[in-house]
Structures are given as structure tokens and as C-alpha cells.
């Protein structure tokens, strides 16, 4: 390891200005300063100040009694021009008091001639330089903070424990219309209305009690003008021992920000409202659209029905006349003596059956095209069902179909057109019978129920000739068969005119169309669905009350 050379570790020589009019003292001091100092020696204040202006020095050793200046004035004059230089004052034994006063005025230290040695001198010089340097740093730091506090666009103050201002920046003072001197030592009560001052002091007490930062936005309404908003941050002031000794506050105008926030909030709420309105409108639009679509479909269907109805009536009239002729002809032959003999008898019977079937089709067409009108009278639905079952009793024999009735015996009288409702029941019963060519069980049930909101809604695709309301008491008639059921792809079409799942010659395709028409004339609904196990269920729902 190589030790650094002497020249490398040696600190740079101190540049010393020695202001001493006594050549002996100057010589002595120069010798005490030694080789580590570069000494410039002058004998008058004027020389000293002049040389300081031309050269850089680290320290000044200043004798207070010079030919051109005496006592403290010497120091004052020097400092006026070179305040940044550390000064060690040198005095004789007889004027130590003056030297001490010089220290008070800004000299770093004083040394008494004749009482100093090399060590003392060098130590005093080092301390003086360090003190001056620390003093300079402190001054710069203070200037820095002063500049910060005074130039920030905020209002800043400090108060003691009693709420007296101990500091206020220029901006704060300007706002109060006072000088710093007029502010310091006073309280909020001296500058603000009592309520406001009391509020400020309460905030201060809160900060002092909690020992924590307090932040708020205060609202002020000047006597003239609009509301103003101020953001306030108050914190406790701690001393070096960590004890709270007061409060400090900083506040600034946030009116523009608050107004902006208010506008933003309003815009946001307007936007939210607009969005809600828009969503509502959208929902309304969608609903209207679906209603229009539904209405359109119904209009198309009604138009179709109307056309079919007109056509049906025309066909019925045209066909009934030739049928009437055939009927008379068949009756003529059936009254002849040969009618008893075979095969004439069978032929006549077949012709009569065919006539009857053709007439049924025509009757169905006429029913379908008839104007919708019902004559409503109170009736017992169970009785109408029994009567209808009686009408189809022949059909129940072959194949064998057993009938089970589950009638609610306390049904209220219902307003119906009895003949038309019987026609509905006979139609539905006949369909059920036809669905069980191998025999089976036909269950007919009646009951009353209160519609849930879900049940009151029209089923998808159902015609909306009227609507039930939730909670409405309705009378339900169900017809369950154990037959083949309806192919799922045909379920949606069973009410269409001329649509039939039966084999040719077995159905007119008008039965369920007419049935639905009659049920709808009663403001009721009819539904056909397959049962989970087997067979189908027809459900007829009728009103018990009418407005």
C-alpha cells in the first residue's frame, strides 16, 4: 500500500488578510500563522478593504484600532463591504470589552494579543471559518424557505397555543389588508367576524387536541359576489422536543376547482339522467316495436281469417244448394219400396252419411264465418260439461274410452252463451276421442284459481284478444286424454283454419278454429299442450267476473 505523499494530504493553505498597524504584532502573528497560511498584511482599514475587493481570503484578522479607524467602527465599516468574510477581532488587554462587543456585532471571535499561541490562533481561525460558513448556509436556507413561503400562491400562517399569529406570509397579510407586524401577536377575532373566528379557533383546537392534520374546504360568501371556496390544511407545529407548540395553516382558493367539480357533477348527473331517459325510451321503443309487430301479425291473421270467412260463407252457400238437392233425392229413394233391399239400403245409408259429413263441414264453415256475437247468460259449467259428454257418449263406446270427471262442485255461475260453449266442449271432447283410436281414459276437470302475475301474461305467440290480470279468479276446464298427443311441430298450427292432424275425411280442419273463436268471444283462452307422460291436455280458461 502506498501512502499518499505529503503534498497530496496537506490541506490548501489558508488565505489570511492580516490588518495590523503594529509591525511587531504583525510579525508575531505571521509567525504564529506559520507556513500553512498565505498571509497578506496591511496596516490600515482602507488598505484591508481594498485588497479584499481584489483578492480572495478565507479569513480576516482585524485589529480594531488602526490609524484610519478605531474601535467597533472598524468592524462595521469592514462588514459593510465584506459581510461574507469571517472576521477574527484582535484586541489588547485594555480593550477586551470592545472586542467582546465586536463579536456581538458579527465578528466570529476575538483574541487578546499577548494571550494567544499558535494552537489557540489556529483553532480560533478554524472555528471562525466554520461558523461563518454555517451562518452563510443558514442564511441561504432561510432565504430559500422565505422565498418559498412568500412566493407560493398560498396563504400561510402560524399560530401559538393561544391562537395568536406568530407568522403570516405576505399574501396572507395582503388579504387581511395588514402588515406582518399588524398580524403577528393578534388572533382571528381581530380580523374576522366572531362566528368565523370562532370556527377557525375551533378548527385549531381540534388540530391541537388530535395532533393530526386537518383538511377541509371552507365556503365563504362575500357580501358582494358569488360563493367562494377555500381549501384549508391545518397541522400542529412541534418543537424540537416533539411537543405541540402551536398550529400552522395553509389555504388557497379552490373556487374554480369546486365550480368545475360542481359542473362536472351536474353534467354527470345530467348524463346519468339522460342515459336513464334514453334507456327508458329504448325499452318503450322495444315494447312498442314488439306490440306493433304483434298487432301487425294479428291484423294479418285477422285479415286472413276475414278472407277465409268470406270465402267460407260463399262456398257454404254454393254447396248447400246442391246438397239440398241431393238430400231430397236421397230421401226420395229412401222412401221407395226398393230401399229396404240390399245393396240399395247400404248405398242409401252411405249417401246419407256422406251428406251428413258434407253438411257438418259446411256448418263448420258457416260457424267460422259467422259474425262474433254471443248471448251471455249465467250458467252452470259442470252441467254444460255433463250435457256435452252426453252428446258424445256414442263416440265413447267404440273404442272403449272411460271418462273420469273431477268437477269442482262449488263453481260460481259463469256468464256464457250455453250453446256455443257446449259446441266448444263437444269439439274438444271429440278431438280427445279421436286422439285415442285404441281407447283410453278421458279426464275432465274443473276448478277455480287465482292467476299469478306469470300466468296472467299472455303465453308467447298467443292471440291477445283480451288480457287477464294478475290475481283474477278464473274458471279452468281441463280435458286430458291418454292418446297419441300432438306432434310438437304441429302444436303451433292446430288452431289454423283447415289444419288437421286427422286422416282425410275425419276432420274439417275448422273445429279448433271455431272453438278458439268462440272461447275468445267469451274473453277466455284455450291452450293445447302435450302431457309429459302421454296424451294431450286442452285447457280452457274463462272469466268469473266481468267489468
Amino acid at each position, binding site marked *: 500500500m502506498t501512502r499518499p505523499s505529503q503534498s497530496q494530504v496537506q490541506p490548501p493553505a489558508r488565505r489570511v488578510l492580516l490588518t495590523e498597524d503594529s509591525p511587531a504584532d504583525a510579525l508575531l502573528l505571521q509567525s504564529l500563522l506559520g507556513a500553512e497560511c498565505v498571509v497578506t498584511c496591511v496596516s490600515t482599514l482602507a488598505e484591508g478593504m481594498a485588497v479584499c475587493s481584489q483578492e480572495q481570503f478565507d479569513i480576516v484578522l482585524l485589529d480594531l484600532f488602526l490609524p484610519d479607524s478605531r474601535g467597533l467602527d472598524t468592524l462595521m465599516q469592514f462588514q459593510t463591504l465584506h459581510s461574507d468574510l469571517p472576521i477574527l477581532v484582535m484586541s489588547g488587554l485594555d480593550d477586551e470589552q470592545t472586542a467582546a462587543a465586536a463579536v456581538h456585532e458579527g465578528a466570529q471571535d476575538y483574541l487578546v494579543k499577548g494571550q494567544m499561541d499558535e494552537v489557540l490562533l489556529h483553532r480560533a481561525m478554524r472555528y471562525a471559518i466554520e461558523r461563518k460558513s454555517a451562518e452563510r448556509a443558514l442564511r441561504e436556507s432561510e432565504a430559500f424557505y422565505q422565498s418559498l413561503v412568500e412566493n407560493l400562491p398560498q396563504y400561510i400562517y402560524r399560530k401559538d397555543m393561544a391562537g395568536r399569529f406568530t407568522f403570516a406570509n405576505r399574501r396572507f397579510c395582503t388579504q387581511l389588508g395588514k402588515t406582518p407586524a399588524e398580524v403577528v401577536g393578534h388572533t382571528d377575532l381581530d380580523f374576522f367576524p366572531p362566528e368565523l373566528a370562532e370556527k377557525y379557533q375551533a378548527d385549531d383546537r381540534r388540530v391541537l387536541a388530535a395532533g393530526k392534520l386537518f383538511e377541509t374546504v371552507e365556503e365563504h360568501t362575500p357580501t358582494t359576489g358569488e360563493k367562494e371556496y377555500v381549501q384549508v390544511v391545518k397541522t400542529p407545529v412541534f418543537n424540537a422536543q416533539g411537543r405541540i407548540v402551536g398550529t400552522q395553516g395553509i389555504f388557497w382558493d379552490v373556487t374554480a376547482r369546486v365550480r368545475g367539480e360542481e359542473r362536472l357533477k351536474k353534467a354527470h348527473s345530467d348524463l346519468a339522467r339522460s342515459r336513464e331517459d334514453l334507456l327508458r325510451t329504448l325499452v318503450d321503443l322495444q315494447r312498442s316495436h314488439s306490440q306493433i309487430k304483434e298487432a301487425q301479425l294479428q291484423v294479418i291473421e285477422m285479415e286472413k281469417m276475414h278472407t277465409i270467412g268470406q270465402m267460407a260463407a260463399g262456398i257454404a252457400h254454393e254447396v*248447400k*244448394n246442391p246438397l*239440398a238437392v241431393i*238430400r231430397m233425392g236421397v*230421401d226420395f229413394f229412401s222412401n221407395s219400396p226398393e230401399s229396404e233391399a240390399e245393396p240399395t239400403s247400404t248405398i242409401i245409408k252411405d249417401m246419407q252419411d256422406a251428406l251428413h259429413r258434407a253438411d257438418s263441414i259446411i256448418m263448420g264453415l258457416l260457424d267460422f264465418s*259467422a259474425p262474433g256475437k254471443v248471448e251471455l247468460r249465467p250458467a252452470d259449467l259442470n252441467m254444460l260439461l255433463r250435457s256435452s259428454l252426453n252428446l258424445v257418449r256414442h263416440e265413447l263406446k267404440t273404442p272403449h274410452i272411460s271418462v273420469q270427471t273431477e268437477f269442482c262442485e262449488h263453481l260460481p255461475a259463469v256468464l256464457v252463451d250455453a*250453446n*256455443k260453449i257446449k259446441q266448444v266442449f263437444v269439439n274438444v271432447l271429440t278431438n280427445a276421442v279421436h286422439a285415442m283410436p285404441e281407447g283410453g281414459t278421458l279426464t275432465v276437470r274443473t276448478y277455480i284459481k287465482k292467476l299469478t302475475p306469470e300466468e296472467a301474461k299472455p303465453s308467447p305467440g298467443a292471440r291477445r284478444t283480451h288480457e287477464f290480470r294478475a290475481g283474477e279468479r278464473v274458471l279452468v276446464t281441463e280435458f286430458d286424454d291418454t292418446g297419441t298427443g300432438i306432434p310438437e311441430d304441429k302444436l303451433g298450427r292446430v288452431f289454423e283454419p283447415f289444419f288437421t292432424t286427422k286422416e282425410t275425411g275425419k276432420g274439417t280442419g275448422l273445429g279448433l278454429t271455431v272453438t278458439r273463436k268462440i272461447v275468445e268471444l267469451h274473453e277466455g283462452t284455450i291452450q293445447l299442450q302435450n302431457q309429459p307422460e302421454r296424451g294431450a291436455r286442452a285447457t280452457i280458461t274463462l272469466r268469473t267476473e266481468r267489468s
Partner: protein
Amino acid sequence: MDQKRILIIDDEATFTRMVRINLEQTKRYVVREENRAPHALTTAHEFKPDLILLDVIMPGVDGGELASRIKADSLLKEVPVIFLTATVSKREAAEGVFTGGYLFLPKPVGLKNLVECMENVLAAKKHEHDPAEVKKPAS
């Protein structure tokens, strides 16, 4: 036996012919056909029927209009009228309906039913009863 005189007014000639043959076969009626509605009153004046079977929809004059004229005619006003119609749409029509004091029978009407209805109406007329009170024919 006193044969009743029946006038059938219908534009369907085959139908009136068939009705005539059937009714005349019973030997209880003398039947006259009229297929031209506008000539019906003249024919009725000439034939002097005991009962008129009348179609509803006919070219020229419809059955309703003709029934009104018959009712207004001093010579014919007492003659009962039975409507035979292809336009009865009500299911009840299968059992016969009275509308406006007239009996309506739906086509195709059976001979037995037709004769029963005619006899009931003629009997009611004989007893000068209101046709509306006449027993309804069996279906």
C-alpha cells in the same frame, strides 16, 4: 183427403223439382215451383197457395223482400211462409229457428223434417195461432 197447395220459390230449379216430387209423392200436397223470384207474386196470385216455401238468396228479389210483399198483399197476407236457406250460420238453425215470426229451415233439409214443419205451420194457421208458438220441429 184435402191436398194442401204448396208454392216453392227458389232459383234452384233442381231443388224445387226435387221438393215437388218428394212432396207430391206423399199425395198430401199439390206443389207449384217458381224459380223466378220477380214473378213469384203473380204466380202466388194465380196458384193461391196454402203455404209458401221461400228461398232467401235469389237474383232479382231476395226472400226477405218477397216475404214483406206477401205480408203486404191483401190476397196473400194470411199465407204462412217457411224460409229454406243455405245461409243460416247458427248451430241452432239445425233445430229450426224463428226470426221475425218466420220459421227458417237450413238446407239441406230432410224430407221428414220439412213435412213435419209444414204440417205444424199449417195446423197453427188452421187454429189461427201465431206461428211463433208452433212447436219446433224435431232435429
